[in-house]
């Protein structure tokens, strides 16, 4: 796989991420995140993607399924019909984790610039705070034929300073 760096944002203060004017010259997008959220939920916080500013105002256009391991067993969840944002639950540590703990994810968005089909997401990620954690794998789609030119990347309560998102273009 050959890929080219498009953009990186590292937070110097707590916030979420926005990537605009995403080039349309690649086959796929590859997104690598090192992150931790600000809300308190010990099972872990979600990763959210919104494409082209679609947060559900024009309809709930996202669906997804995930499987989880938590150390004592496994389970799965899904949003088979529709949601207003692409969500991967429980994939980042929350504000109650000890200092220094972060999670990581690797997300691929396939054929993101194709204007004739919906956009497919696949995600793996997780975290461990030496006392609890999650390993998560999932996939989903954004039901739009529009090419993705903007991505909002969020988590519950916003990302903690030090979190980073890097976006790459995968060459066909």
């Amino acid at each position, binding site marked *: 796989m050959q890929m080219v760096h498009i953009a990186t944002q590292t937070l110097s203060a707590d916030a979420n991420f926005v990537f605009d004017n995403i080039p349309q010259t690649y086959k796929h997008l590859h997104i690598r995140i090192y992150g931790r959220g600000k809300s308190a939920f010990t099972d872990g916080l979600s990763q959210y993607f919104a494409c082209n500013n679609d947060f559900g105002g024009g309809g709930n256009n996202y669906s997804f399924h995930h499987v989880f391991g938590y150390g004592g067993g496994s389970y799965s969840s899904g949003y088979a019909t529709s949601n207003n944002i692409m969500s991967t639950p429980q994939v980042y540590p929350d504000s109650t984790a000890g200092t220094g703990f972060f999670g*990581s994810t690797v997300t691929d968005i396939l054929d993101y610039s194709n204007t004739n089909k919906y956009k497919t997401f696949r995600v793996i990620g997780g975290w461990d705070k030496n006392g609890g954690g999650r390993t998560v794998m999932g996939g989903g789609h954004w039901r739009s034929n529009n090419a993705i030119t903007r991505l909002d990347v969020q988590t519950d309560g916003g990302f903690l300073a030090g979190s980073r998102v890097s976006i790459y273009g995968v060459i066909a």
Partner: protein
Amino acid sequence: MTLNSRSAKLSSPNIKVQDVPNKPTVTGLSQDDVNGTIDVAFTPATTGGSAAIYRAVSNPGNIEAISYGSSPVKVSGLSNNTAYTFTIKGETSTGATSGFTEATSSVTPQFGAMVPIATFNGDGSTRDVYFGNIPQNYKDLLIIGNVRSNQGSANDIAALYAGNYGAYTHSQVVFESNGSSLTSSRTTSAGAAYIGTIPANSATTGTYGYIAAHLHNYSSTGTFKTLLCKSAYNSAGTGKVEIRSGSIQSTPAITEIRIFPWGSGTAWMTGSTFTLYGIRG
């Protein structure tokens, strides 16, 4: 008439004799963030005159670039996947120079964001894969393995030490399937992190396992590192697929990595290979 240079200098106080800069020393060759560009890093000579510019020339191509006094010289317009050597010289503002250095070792421009750093090939007797002096100029590391251990059983497990082994805690959540059930477990260990179950000596001949281990923020000195792994293998109908997410609870940057088969006295079988990649960002 023969001109006596000493007397000419003494009798012509307005003529300034400029010291010639000696040859600089090349200290490194690296891919620049710009496609087709190699950075030729150097240190100026500590003797001789001061250079106003440093000029580097590629071979092949005779592509020339200059820097106005500071390292590196950025040589652009190079072709990816072609090996180049460089010579470099310092010059005064009037062009005085001691000439070019000897040619450097070769470097091959590769602009992709995923840059191979080092590769290990198993020989049936080597136990430790050692990646040392890991460059600190990437965002993440990615290790991809296609490997098999010579432990006398159907499978073994690959383990990894990042940096000062034993001096930190690693904990992880494992999520795996053996084809008939899904299980998840947690482990906490002093240093060593499991990165994947792999086939071993009694597995089907020719069977090798797949491992991809992502180390995010490995060069950070302020937070813990994350280790996210995928692995899979199959041997005559048995096998495993695993995902592991964990934390290396250590703040120093990771500068070295060891990977070894967990089984006692084992080694990587011939045909095994690990490649360490740096991910630009």
